[in-house]
């Protein structure tokens, strides 16, 4: 099975080292750094090259410091976030978006 390739970028200066992303990562790919940032926190870093861009870490990140990357496949090509960002003005009613479970 071809692994979906993903990656994350962490804004380490805003990270407070809460470790929630670490436990959320299903692939155990994140850990705390040894060093500290200017705020005085050990920040999160990606330590295993196994990321598949599942977004779990980003979803639970209270400081919104994680950007998630993924290779362009038909399935994951465009996510609602990017798509809907263009929508403005009048909206249409829908019974919820982003239905995919986790």
């Amino acid at each position: 099975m071809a692994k979906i390739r993903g990656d994350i970028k962490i804004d380490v200066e805003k990270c407070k080292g809460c470790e929630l992303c670490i436990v959320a990562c299903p692939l155990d790919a994140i850990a705390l750094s040894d060093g500290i940032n200017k705020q005085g926190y050990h920040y999160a870093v990606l330590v295993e090259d196994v990321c598949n861009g599942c977004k779990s870490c980003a979803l639970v990140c209270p400081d919104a410091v994680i950007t998630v990357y993924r290779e362009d496949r038909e399935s994951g090509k465009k996510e609602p976030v990017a798509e809907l960002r263009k929508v403005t003005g009048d909206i249409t009613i829908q019974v919820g978006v982003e239905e995919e479970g986790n």
Partner: protein
Amino acid sequence: MQEIEHHYDDLSVIYERPATLLDTRMHYCPGCGHGVAHRIVMEAVEELGIQETTVGVAPVGCSVFAYHYMNVDMQEAAHGRATAVATGIKRCRPDKYVFTYQGDGDLAAIGTGETIHTVNRGENILIVFINNAIYGMTGGQMAPTTLITQKTSTTPYGREASFMGNPLKITDLLAMLPGAFYVTRQAVNTPAHVRKAKKAILNGFQWQKLNKGTCFVEIVSNCPTNWGMKPVESNKWLEEYMLPFYPLGDMKVPSKEELENG
């Protein structure tokens, strides 16, 4: 730990901080659920493209500074009065999307009267209710939603029902009111919960267009600092103690007909 080498170039961004959430360090303690809740509210605003027509209200509590982070027009409200403030806004600007973002002390203690009457009038607003069972900003006092036996700075020996009453399930009460259009309880302690909570927020915003009543989203959250726990621990405690008492799920959902006859 050693950071791996990144390879952003041949990948696409599939998730990033919403542009509606200002790129500022938040004052919340490490691991605080407010950050996630802020983010999903702002994601919803961005995805629905309603940044220009949204007005938020954040009252006293840890989230009093929400306007430092949310890039929409906002009003800071007096403690407990967010829904009254939102009523004032919405009644005068019925074409705007109005939401409040309130904590448990605010919404369910001092603001009980305003909360109930706002929902009873069926004001067409979204109320986001962060329930972390404690007063955060003032330093960890008992909240109306504090669990029995839970220790806080004003229940140093644990909350006792016979003396301080039981935790108030205000969301259950609100679901009984005809003015409530959509009432749900969500959490943000796991990726799955975050997704569902965000969907609830999206619903709550969208359905304002129908003018059919109040949308109410409770988010069960944590308070690592005042619970005296590390963030990860606090989310476990949440799962183990909060959720059994505050079970997640919808309490009142509009029917298909109600949604279609917009």
